[in-house]
């Protein structure tokens, strides 16, 4: 990222996400907004495989990526010549998976004479709410809760991030999925567990709210799994009991997240809270935070679910913001499997 080059900041930006399980591609135009975004798992590409789509392993980005780029450009009504820049997830993530996206994106940009920018995956998540019609202005606090993350981050401005808290062991979504499995639901069963909790009666079981009895913004959800397992094993294991246990588990997670969110807002003085990540779809979490916001005078922003989970749109957006101020990569292909979010250069 050194000198701006001629075309930086002009025209639509192609975004490529391959850091873990999902292959995602999108086109974001700084002037017109999001033009198209696709995830491999959501579309069929019969033509590319001669009529039969093999059951591709997740993370097989090599075979998925180029058909997905073609499909996304077609949906946006663009050809490669219309692009103004290329963004790709450069980290953190699995080195082999990152290299697929970085190599394809960097090579495409080089061959077209366009600037390329490596995006931090977490910055993509933090900026995803800016894809919505009523984007929250920084400063805000973001809670990123998914199968892989449980983080609280202060967003002072674009590119200015401070990690406030993180999980010491399991992520919140992982706790949902593993607890569901321990209670006999198919893996990953987090959403099924949440549905089951809707039928549970409050107060039949109660689990601890981990780490809320001491100061700080870190999370720990591993012990909760064991508590639930013990309660379940020593119960009558009836259907209603399963729902009651699920209810108590969900309440413990949601209340813990809500307590830490309010603590983070108090600590930073921010009045806006952004929820990102797949667990952001949880109805009890949404209701609890919306209620707390109304009561205590902070606003809560939920990006639509397709932008909560991994996607190419957030990478195209974050890349477009950085390209617009002249940041870009040198021609070599580099990925950063481990990358500190706080080390990013500010944009504004």
């Amino acid at each position: 990222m050194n000198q701006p080059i001629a075309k930086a900041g002009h025209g639509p930006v192609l975004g490529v996400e391959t850091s873990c399980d999902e292959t995602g591609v999108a086109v974001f135009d700084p002037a017109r907004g999001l033009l198209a975004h696709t995830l491999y798992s959501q579309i069929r590409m019969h033509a590319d495989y001669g009529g039969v789509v093999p059951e591709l392993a997740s993370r097989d980005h090599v075979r998925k990526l180029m058909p997905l780029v073609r499909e996304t450009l077609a949906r946006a009504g663009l050809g490669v010549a219309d692009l103004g820049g290329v963004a790709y997830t450069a980290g953190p993530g699995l080195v082999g998976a990152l290299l697929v996206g970085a190599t394809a994106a960097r090579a495409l940009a080089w061959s077209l004479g366009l600037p390329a920018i490596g995006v931090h995956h977490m910055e993509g998540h933090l900026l995803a709410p800016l894809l919505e019609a009523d984007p929250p202005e920084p400063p805000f606090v973001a809670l990123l809760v998914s199968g892989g993350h449980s983080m609280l981050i202060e967003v002072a401005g674009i590119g200015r991030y401070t990690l406030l808290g993180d999980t010491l062991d399991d992520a919140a979504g992982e706790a949902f999925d593993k607890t569901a499995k321990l209670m006999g639901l198919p893996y990953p069963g987090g959403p099924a567990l949440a549905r089951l909790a809707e039928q549970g009666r409050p107060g039949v079981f109660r689990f601890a709210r981990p780490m809320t009895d001491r100061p700080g913004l870190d999370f720990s959800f591993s012990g909760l799994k064991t508590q639930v397992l013990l309660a379940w094993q020593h119960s009558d294991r009836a259907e209603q009991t399963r729902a009651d246990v699920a209810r108590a588990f969900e309440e413990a997670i949601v209340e813990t997240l809500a307590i830490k969110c309010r603590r983070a807002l108090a600590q930073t003085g921010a009045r806006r809270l952004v929820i990102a990540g797949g667990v952001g779809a949880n109805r009890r979490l949404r209701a609890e935070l919306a209620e707390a916001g109304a009561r205590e005078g902070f606003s809560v922003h939920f990006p639509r679910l397709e932008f909560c989970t991994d996607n190419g749109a957030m990478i195209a957006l974050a890349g477009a913001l950085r390209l617009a101020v002249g940041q870009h990569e040198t021609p070599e292909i580099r990925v950063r499997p481990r990358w500190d979010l706080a080390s990013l250069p500010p944009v504004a």
Partner: protein
Amino acid sequence: MIISLNGLDEPHLVRLAARLAPALRDGGTLYLRGDLGAGKTTFARALLQALGVDARIKSPTYSLIESYRVGGLDIHHLDLYRIADPGELEWLGLAELSDGLSLVLVEWPERGAGSLPSADLQLRLDHADAGRDLAARALSLRGEAMLAAWDPARPG
């Protein structure tokens, strides 16, 4: 050599993990087998802390791999629970992990059969009526030395 212990409570399991650390300071490969919730990650976390990892020790279930460097030793903690096909391990850059100098801890190694570095030492954890059962088995000369130095059946 195989050593089995029955009915371990969590503090005992954590003490045993900490006591294994000195035998692994020169690297090697450790497999951790057992069902969900059997204590694999608890054991791995206690072991990593005893080796001097002071960063957050996050579960690698979603990221598949978490790596650390302490005192000149590279440590890779893998969890293959979500791997459906050993071919997917290509994305982890495993060739770099099996240089014999790094310490590689693998949970759910059966899901990576054929694509993983072979184990020096294998631990199996099982739920028991009271606590957990642990079985430790050496699978190489290096593993025999690790197990002898560890001696989990020794009191203390």
